[in-house]
């Protein structure tokens, strides 16, 4: 599939924002004092909103984006929009009480946490629902999206709170565990993706054309000599060219680097700076991971080309 930069940015950054909101709602340690609270709230809000705004950039008609809130009964994309706006409204109320009255409402917090999880889950389901793309159609897709969202949230929470303690352990340690768990899921995802082909549905050039019963079917001539929307969007090849290098970048910047930085941060020296570097590294690593999520995905239309 064609890896649209706006969609990669959307899934990663909104995941980070909602991951942070999830932790806020649980009452995770956050900075004290007006300026600290403001920075924490601004970061969570900006990441989520910037991600959602970015998702409208790949639309042909962004001015009609409001219509996407209407079909939540059948469409995961619509559900994602509705849930995102609901989460942001709850977040707004939570932020208002916290910033102006110093009150972190538990009731609002729990609603915000649940809504954040639901939003990220809905984002992942936009992709995981597609039977046409067997690589995506697995419970591992939402599991990875949720795990990476949590990992990003934890690294950011650690940076904001000066590595606050939860259960006697610094946030950086929790974040390290989350990153390792997320990548374990992603390894399972990659492992499955490497061998899945079209085996989930059993589709082949033979079934796509109905000619498989006669004999071996192969494409003789494409319908047009040039590229078209379908070949550019679904039969995208260029993104896969550097797949191995991108995997190394994804794992290096998204797993090894942040975990090393956070283990150093758990020592307590310069922890805020180390966690800030770790969160940027993780973000960049996940951009590479998300690029591959799209670029390596094979669509059933591929069978006609």
């Amino acid at each position: 599939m064609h890896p649209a930069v706006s969609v990669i940015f959307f899934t990663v950054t909104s995941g980070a924002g909602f991951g942070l909101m999830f932790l806020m709602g649980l009452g995770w340690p956050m900075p004290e004092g007006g300026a600290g609270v403001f920075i924490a709230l601004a970061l969570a809000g900006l990441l989520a909103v910037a991600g959602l705004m970015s998702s409208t950039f790949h639309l042909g008609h962004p001015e009609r984006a409001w219509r996407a809130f209407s079909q939540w009964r059948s469409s995961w994309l619509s559900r994602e929009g509705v849930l995102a706006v609901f989460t942001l409204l709850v977040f707004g109320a939570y932020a208002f009480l916290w910033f102006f009255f110093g009150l972190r409402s538990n009731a609002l917090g729990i609603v915000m946490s649940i809504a954040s999880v639901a939003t990220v889950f809905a984002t992942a389901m936009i992709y995981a629902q597609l039977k046409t793309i067997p690589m995506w159609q697995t419970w591992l897709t939402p599991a990875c999206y949720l795990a990476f969202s949590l990992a990003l949230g934890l690294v950011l929470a650690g940076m904001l709170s000066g590595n606050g303690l939860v259960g006697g352990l610094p946030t950086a340690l929790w974040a390290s565990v989350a990153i390792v768990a997320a990548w374990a899921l992603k390894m399972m995802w990659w492992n499955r993706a490497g061998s899945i082909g079209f085996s989930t549905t059993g589709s082949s050039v033979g079934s796509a054309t109905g000619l498989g019963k006669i004999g071996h079917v192969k494409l003789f001539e494409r319908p047009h000599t040039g590229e078209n929307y379908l070949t550019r969007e679904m039969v995208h090849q260029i993104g896969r060219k550097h797949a191995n290098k991108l995997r190394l970048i994804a794992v290096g910047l998204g797993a090894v680097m942040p975990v090393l930085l956070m283990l150093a941060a758990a020592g307590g020296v310069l922890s805020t700076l180390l966690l800030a570097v770790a969160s940027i590294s993780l973000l960049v690593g996940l951009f590479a991971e998300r690029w591959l999520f799209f670029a390596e995905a094979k669509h059933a239309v591929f069978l006609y080309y």
Partner: protein
Amino acid sequence: MTMLPERQPGAKALGLVIDLDTCVGCHACVVNCKEWNTAGYGAPLSDTDPYGDDPSGAWLNRVHSFEVTPADAPAQIVHFPKSCLHCEDAPCVTVCPTGASYKRAEDGIVLVDEDMCIGCGLCAWACPYGAREIDPVEQVMKKCTLCVDRIYNDNIPEEDRVPACVKTCPAEARHFGDLADPESDVSKLVAERGGMDLMPEQGTKPVNKYLPPRPKATQTAPSIAPLAEPKAEGGVLGWLDRALDRL
């Protein structure tokens, strides 16, 4: 609404039956489809760089060509026109976030309300057949309308009230009708010729059916092997042939 409509008893399921045996791959259906639909329903079907080095554009119907090689016979070419199959369980409809994509309850045609389409492209991702394309200029999703503006059009002669691709096909490889009615011509044709679904395993329940190529007559003519050993029978050439053989 992007929920699929409840199947009403007696409702039509309009669609196409495409005969892969008679299609000659002339692309006339492709061209007439583009011609009609660039002036009819919705925004024109645009092209980018049509006379330049890298022409591209939106088409609702495309003809692929495949080579099929049976285990015990020579390869054959099958021309393969492909457009929207107006699926009963259309995945493109239910994924639409805006309600722009819909399936009509009365005749099963899958359409896009272009004024509501945000051009997110998710319906094209959900379609296994590649039947939907975003218009490069209008940035809305385009797809086969089954020429809804012809088949119900009282302003054109009755014999023209069929989709443009069907009307123009010189080989009569395309047939239009109600596939929900077992007594319709198209349904009989499907029954008689073993009409098939494309990718039935995707669970889309396509309305359009494809008629497989008829089995070719098996070739009993001798192979080209005798030509490899030519034999001159008489005359000077015959004598020369025999003489040189003996050498």
